[in-house]
């Protein structure tokens, strides 16, 4: 069933469905209307709320935080007072320390003066004591009368001695007092330093607290409130959507949808017909085909389709030949050829370095090759389908039309059908054990030309196969060069009277075909050959040549071909000789 038929059938079903679509009951309709009214009111309310929330969310100023009196006034004042207090106390400590140090200096100076005085007094006392001692000794011994002191002089010296001793005593007291003062001021300075240290610590703590307050300060925008409103908004939007869906459901009229679908299908059908017409015109390009193709489409009409007969009317179109140069549709094969694919001239042929040969056998290259191969096949299949679809759209239309002349629109395709047997040879790799192909070049003989088979008309019931049957010449063992025999036939296409049609030939038994390839002497070396219409692998197993062929999935399956090895050449004998040369 082609696309047009499917669309038509779909339309028929849709129309039947339309007929069976029952109208809504009156009371149910009233109930629905009431519900719709209520829904409309709710929708209006929801929409207003949604709009309000959206506007609120659009301006962040709506979410600014409000600060307390403590945050705004008290706290900064307290912080300021503490900072001032610390500053004042530090200043006080510095001042008192300065004073203490000054006092210490004065006391130290005084201590130095008294120490000097005491030392001087001690020397003087010592001199006095020496004088008195000399006087005493001179008097006792009655010598050195000049040294004798009078009694008054002795008294005076004694009084001076006592006086100086008193002065020393007083000086020592002052010295003690000064030392004590110096120590006291030292203690006061130490205490002040301790206070200063504590004060510095307090100041540091205060600074840390202020920094932390700045750092941890909350954003001015209350994001939590924003999130709450966003949640609320999404809830309201969901609710709004649900209300609209409900309203849509209540208002839904399937018949309208069905009608719309039917109309769409009809538009597609009309487009398809236009496209088909263009492609059919393209098929006229080839001179082998009739210059005028007359379409006479008559669709099978069903009970409902008869009603549609006005819409989908079988058409009769008379197409005139189209100048290929003016055709807007390119040949599909040409269309897929890219500019880059133009032939490139061979500049140089080099022997591949050993490194490349090693890489060729690596798993990485094999995997990449397999991946590329699969992709290329898939792409090729897709391209082939596109070409067939493009070229064969008219054929699709015509398939259902038995009265339409069956035009083989693939007549321009000169490429082989993959399902057919192909005259195809895979060359073996040249290895040190393999003689060069150039040596065998002469052995590769061209297929023997046969007289062209006369085209037959569809009226011919049986093709005269005896006339085309060819006996392949037997191989002369002593002759190294034996011409290869290939029987060329063509597939019979009875539907196409204009084309040369060759009758299908029967298979010939035990024909002899020359080998186009060399088998290596390794245990299992594959050489793929072309026998008559069949690909085979020749495997050398245990000294004997075994022939296998490829199955549909690429696997090896036993082949009926037998192999004969004669001297340097190898011949294969195949029961199949019917090569379809394309």
């Amino acid at each position, binding site marked *: 069933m082609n696309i047009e038929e499917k669309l038509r059938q779909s339309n028929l079903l849709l129309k039947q469905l339309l007929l069976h679509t029952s109208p809504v009951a009156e009371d149910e309709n009233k109930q629905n209307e009431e519900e719709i009214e209520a829904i409309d009111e709710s929708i209006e309310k929801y929409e207003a709320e949604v709009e309000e929330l959206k506007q609120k969310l659009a301006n962040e100023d709506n979410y600014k935080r409000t600060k307390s009196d403590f945050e705004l006034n008290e706290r900064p004042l307290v912080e300021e007072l503490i900072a001032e207090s610390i500053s004042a106390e530090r200043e006080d400590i510095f001042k008192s320390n300065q004073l203490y140090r000054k006092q210490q200096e004065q006391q130290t100076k005084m201590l130095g003066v008294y120490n000097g005085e005491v030392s001087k007094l001690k020397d003087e006392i010592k001199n006095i004591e020496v004088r008195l001692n000399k006087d005493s000794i001179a008097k006792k011994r009655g010598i050195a009368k000049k040294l004798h002191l009078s009694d008054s002089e002795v008294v005076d010296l004694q009084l001076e001695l006592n006086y100086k001793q008193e002065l020393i005593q007083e000086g020592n007291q002052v010295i003690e007092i000064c030392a004590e003062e110096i120590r006291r001021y030292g203690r006061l300075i130490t205490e002040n330093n301790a206070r200063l240290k504590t004060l510095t610590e307090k100041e540091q703590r205060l600074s840390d607290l202020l920094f932390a307050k700045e750092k941890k300060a909350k954003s001015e925008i209350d994001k939590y409130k924003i999130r709450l409103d966003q949640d609320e908004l999404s809830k309201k939007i969901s609710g709004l959507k649900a209300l609209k869906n409900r309203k849509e459901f209540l208002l839904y009229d399937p018949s309208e949808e069905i009608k719309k679908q039917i109309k769409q299908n009809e538009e597609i059908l009309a487009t398809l017909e236009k496209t088909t017409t263009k492609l059919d015109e393209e098929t006229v390009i080839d001179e082998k085909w009739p210059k005028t193709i007359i379409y006479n489409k008559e669709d099978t009409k069903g009970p409902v389709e008869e009603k549609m007969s006005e819409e989908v009317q079988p058409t009769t179109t008379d197409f005139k030949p189209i100048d290929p140069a003016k055709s807007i549709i390119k040949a599909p094969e040409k269309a897929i050829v890219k500019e880059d694919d133009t032939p490139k001239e061979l500049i140089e042929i080099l022997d591949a370095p050993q490194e490349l040969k090693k890489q060729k056998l690596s798993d990485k290259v094999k995997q*990449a090759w397999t991946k590329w191969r699969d992709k290329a096949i898939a792409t090729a299949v897709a391209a082939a389908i596109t070409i067939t679809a493009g070229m064969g759209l008219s054929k699709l239309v015509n398939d259902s039309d038995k009265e339409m002349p069956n035009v083989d629109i693939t007549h321009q395709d000169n490429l082989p059908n993959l399902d057919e047997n192909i005259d195809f040879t895979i060359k073996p790799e040249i290895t040190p054990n393999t003689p060069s192909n150039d040596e065998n070049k002469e052995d590769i003989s061209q297929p023997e030309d046969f007289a062209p088979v006369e085209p037959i008309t569809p009226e011919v019931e049986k093709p005269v196969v005896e006339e085309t049957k060819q006996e392949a010449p037997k191989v002369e063992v002593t002759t190294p060069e034996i011409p290869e025999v290939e029987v060329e036939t063509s597939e019979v296409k009875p539907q196409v009277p204009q084309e040369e049609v060759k009758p299908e030939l029967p298979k010939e038994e035990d024909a002899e075909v020359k080998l186009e390839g060399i088998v290596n002497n390794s245990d299992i070396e594959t050489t793929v050959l072309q026998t008559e219409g069949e690909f085979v692998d020749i495997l050398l197993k245990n000294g004997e040549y075994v022939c296998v062929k490829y199955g549909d999935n690429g696997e090896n399956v036993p082949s009926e071909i037998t192999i004969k090895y004669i001297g340097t050449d190898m011949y294969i004998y195949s029961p199949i000789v019917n090569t379809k040369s394309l």
Partner: protein
Amino acid sequence: MENRINKVIKLSDNKLYYLLKQAVYNNDSYYTAVEVTDDMQALTEEFTLLHEINEDGKIFFAKVVEPKMIQMLLKYMKVPE
């Protein structure tokens, strides 16, 4: 119909191709080839199918683009051996 398997060809666009497999169809040679780096020391992952064309004694290589031909060639050309 020369056997060019394991040969490296240099084409007019200065690309180097290492010929992995060769097939003969209608007396024309087709190759599975992989592009080679300029220093000829490594294979790239750029595989292609090439068709050898002989015109007035000059040899050209064209990429095979016909889907059916690609299918046919790849059906019988297996993993590099």
